[in-house]
């Protein structure tokens, strides 16, 4: 072997359209492309009314997916978030009906969300129990507890002031959309530019290496879960206030939709890779597909199958990418 071959440049030929090949760009193209294709078939799909309904009705999923993405990037998973959102929405609605000040009704789900998720983070990090087991337990506790306490009854007669989702900023920006965008951008910026955000990627990418670099794996995991709880609290508020009533049960399969948004958004299920911008775009895409199915006369029940296909395709692509990297 000569020195020349030993020191061969390892620069890969820069992929054409390298930037466009990122998951975020692909999703953005898919969101716009789908709107155009379905719009050509049925122009009513593009009506402002419909598009805003799609966004308003699903913003809470995108917000919850921001926290979920952090959890998955840190190398964990959470399947209790759907149940937690149900509990927090009920809690907030009940407080509102009981006449609690609006600020309390809005802050309570945030605080309770942080505490519940933070506790799960402590169990996962300090007792070293896999996240899937801990959050499965919490899922059952919350779901069972909620139905037992409330009997699944509807919460009605909510005061007008409670309806956070009805607020329009500057007279035209609906609160859910505003919160979705702000939560996504703030989280994206924080994850990219803060030392703690970087620690999440390091812990998820290689926990052992992170530990040897003096990054506390445990504290990072607890922090990630607490943040996830905060975003779940915002999601619960949006979910609770979008209609005039709250059904005090857990929305079916909500956690799966949220995880799907994260994974389709490019967050690696193996940890260490992904962005919250991707997961928000994916949440929007999934909502858009669900709506589009109606407009092209396909049963909306297909949305689950479509989600399934999306999740498998992205996970397979991610695993293949990792293998290639490991083989290099």
């Amino acid at each position, binding site marked *: *072997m000569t*020195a020349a071959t*030993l*020191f*061969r*440049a*390892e*620069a*890969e030929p*820069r992929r054409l359209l390298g930037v466009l090949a990122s998951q975020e760009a692909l999703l953005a193209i898919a969101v716009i492309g789908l709107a155009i294709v379905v719009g050509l078939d049925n122009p009513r799909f593009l009506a402002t009314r419909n598009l805003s309904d799609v966004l308003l009705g699903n913003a809470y999923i995108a917000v919850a997916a921001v926290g979920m993405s952090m959890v998955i990037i840190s190398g964990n998973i959470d399947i209790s978030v759907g149940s937690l959102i149900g509990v927090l929405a009920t809690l907030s609605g009940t407080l509102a009906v009981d006449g609690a000040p609006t600020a309390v009704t809005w802050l309570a789900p945030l605080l309770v969300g942080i505490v519940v998720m933070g506790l799960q983070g402590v169990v996962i990090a300090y007792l070293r129990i896999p996240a899937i087991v801990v959050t499965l337990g919490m899922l059952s506790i919350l779901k069972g507890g909620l139905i037992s306490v409330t009997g699944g009854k509807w919460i009605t007669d909510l005061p007008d002031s409670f309806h956070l989702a009805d607020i329009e900023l500057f007279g035209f920006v609906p609160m859910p959309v505003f919160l979705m965008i702000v939560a996504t951008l703030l989280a994206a910026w924080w994850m990219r*530019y*803060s*030392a*703690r955000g*970087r*620690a999440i*990627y*390091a812990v998820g*990418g*290689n926990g*052992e*290496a*992170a*530990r*040897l*670099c*003096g*990054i*506390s794996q445990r504290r990072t995991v607890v922090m990630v879960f607490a943040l996830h709880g905060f975003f779940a609290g915002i999601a619960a508020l949006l979910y609770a206030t979008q209609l005039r009533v709250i059904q005090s049960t857990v929305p079916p399969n909500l956690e799966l939709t949220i995880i799907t948004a994260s994974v389709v958004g490019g967050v*690696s299920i193996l940890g*260490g*890779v992904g962005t919250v911008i991707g997961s928000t775009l994916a949440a929007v895409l999934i909502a858009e597909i669900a709506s589009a199915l109606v407009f092209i006369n396909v049963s909306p029940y297909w949305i689950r199958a479509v989600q399934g296909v999306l999740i498998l395709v992205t996970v397979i692509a991610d695993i293949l990418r*990792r293998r290639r*990297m*490991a083989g*290099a």
Partner: protein
Amino acid sequence: MATDQARSEASPPPLLSVRDIEKSFPGVRALSGVSFDVAQGEVHALLGENGAGKSTLIKIVSGVFPPDRGEVIVDGRPVNLERPDDARRAGIATIYQELLLFPELTVAENVYMGHAPRAGLGRLDWRAMREKTGELLASLEIHDLKADRVVGALSVGNRQRVEILRALSQDARILIMDEPTAALTEYDVTRLFDIVRKLKARGVAVIYISHRLDEIFAIADRVTVLRDGAHVATKRVADTDSAELVQLMVGRKIESLFPKITVPIGEPVLEIKDLERRPLTKKISLTVRAGEIVGLAGLVGSGRSELAQTIFGVTPAEAGEIRIAGKKVEIRSPAQARALGVAYVPEDRGTQGLVRPMTVLENFSLAALGKVAFGGFIDRAAERKLAADGVKRFSVKASSLEQVAGKLSGGNQQKIVLGKWLANQPKLLILDEPTRGIDVGAKAEIHRLMGELAAQGLAILMISSELPEVLGMSDRVLVMREGRIVAEFSRAEATQEAAGAAMMGSQEAEKAA
């Protein structure tokens, strides 16, 4: 040439013959034209330093992966070993160091896993399985093991016997044992030797891999020495002695390496006294001074990495004293060690050093985030400068700072792991196998960097399994064996033979004899 020699020395016709095997992995030539053969009823020892190619060779013979060139001949017929199953059918069985058993199953089930006797309708014949296992046990005169015991509850020695039974149940005629005594008690070693002698009497050929020279003299008929992936010699055990074997194993030229430049040695940076962390760090005392490179030699499993991890706070010490720059300190976590100016480049960069999905930039700044982050936020410009300096200083070949680190070659990954720690400006650098698995060019570069760093006053403690590297780079050489420091050599005194003998413990063995 070596082939002819090996062949002519074997008196009976060989049962297994390995001819001109070559095997390369990306960046490393693991085997270059290795030949040896084993006769029926012979115990043939394979000897070599870590990385000499023993494991690769036995993996080829066991069908784990095919050779690039060369052939394996059993009973005079070339066999094609594509998969482990091919080796099994050729009558070759391998007992790896980490025993591959099913702990929840019984002895009989483990022995017959995959080839259980069948009764009608394809049912497993449990009775026959138990009876045949009993017969095998009786044939080896093993009386303290029952066919229906659960394997998980057995001692290491007994588990190994189960593996041997398993090999015999498949009518293996060639048995490969990879460091079979590494985890055994003395009593179990004696019993193993009894069994090996019984197998030998039955005509089974045994390929025996071990670092322990006294064992080789006790059990083997012939010994083949490998060095740097090449066949060095095949000797009758009766015609050689341990000094000659050590010489054959380590006798390598050092000229290809970058020698350490002489620099003034300063004050002690690391002083440890009677440091203890069971089971592998026993009353260790040593000093490393500014500008000094202290080499820590020893075999794998001698406790060198464990010592490094104890100093670095990964597995904090249970007793003893650590002083950094003269001040007594307590190190309970890597974060504390880092704050005290200690850096540790781990042995296994894949699992311990590099965050593969992260970019080169992010990996470089990971251990020094405190230096580039202000108020919790990372100053991207400072970070970029830090990484760019590191890439330049360590000549990392990457297409850009944004390249994913996992895609780089081993040598470049190692440079990043090294550079990441130096970004923190440490006083003491602990390097664990700094050049393992990287090519010669990258190796020379890392050696050059180590010399430069020492010249700048850094104290370096280097663990390496390659004696020439230890001897070429170190101002002082410490040798560890079984958790203790057993020898110390100055640069002038340190020879491959002396250090090798201390590593192997052959001095002691000879003294005792």
